[in-house]
């Protein structure tokens, strides 16, 4: 039975539940927008990496560099799209 529940997986699961609770703090505690967003961002980024490395085994083969590059490129395009659009559609509008 024990071999079916490897420690890494169980720890990862518990950790992701904790991180969700940490993120929840932004709703219950009064804090600035910047502080809240920072907490959300950090918690979400750690959770995403947990999934990538622990559950998706992104680093287990010889093509891991390609996989990292793929994720980085996708995040680059995704973030550029989000923030570039906000710049063009909201922040910049005079």
């Amino acid at each position, binding site marked *: 039975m024990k071999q*079916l529940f490897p420690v890494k997986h169980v720890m990862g699961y518990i950790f992701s539940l904790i991180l969700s609770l940490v993120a929840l703090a932004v709703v219950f505690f009064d804090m600035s927008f910047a502080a809240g967003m920072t907490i*959300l961002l950090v918690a979400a980024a750690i959770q995403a990496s947990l999934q*990538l490395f622990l*559950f998706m085994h992104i680093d287990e083969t010889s093509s891991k560099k390609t*996989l990292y590059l793929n994720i980085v490129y996708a995040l680059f395009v995704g973030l550029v*799209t989000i923030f570039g659009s*906000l710049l063009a559609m909201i922040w910049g509008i005079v």
Partner: protein
Amino acid sequence: MKHDTSLALEYRTEENENRILGFWLFLGAEIVLFSTLFTVFFTLSHRYGNGPTPHELFELKGVLWETFLLLTSSFTCGLAIHSMRLGLKKPMMTFFIITMLFGLGFLGVEVTEFITYVHDGATIQTSAFLSSLFTLLGTHGAHVTFGLLWGTAIMIQVKKYGIDEATANKSFIFSLYWHFLDVVWIFIFSFVYLKGLM
């Protein structure tokens, strides 16, 4: 085709390795797809028209249930793949079934949430904010729905053929998809619900 037999079963032919790489690349495209939906949501998230605001709309209870269900199903999906690598078909199937059930539970809560919104007069046509909200959540929900169908098809194949190169490969790829949906949900949870309620 000589191939490294020290690798896990799902990698053991050239085609299998290509499929896994190809699916990772596809997930890269999915990251951009969801980023675009987030772009739309962030751009329109304060444009309520005559409709409700997030504070009037969102209820934390359902969202927490959804998060718990999906995180757990992601965990059991990881365990299923772990069992598969140990060559244990029975626990693998059990974990897969649990994964599917939790996924179904998630979907149930989400559908209930949608029905409540619509009952309160907040439909996809009400305001730009609601259009973008329903579309972002709906696209994720549609992915989960597709995942349930796909996962079921793979379970049937594992049951029929056992754990071989083909079914191991398919199961592993499905697990990538399922974990990815969990990652997307984490961002929805954080930047749609929690940010909306801040």
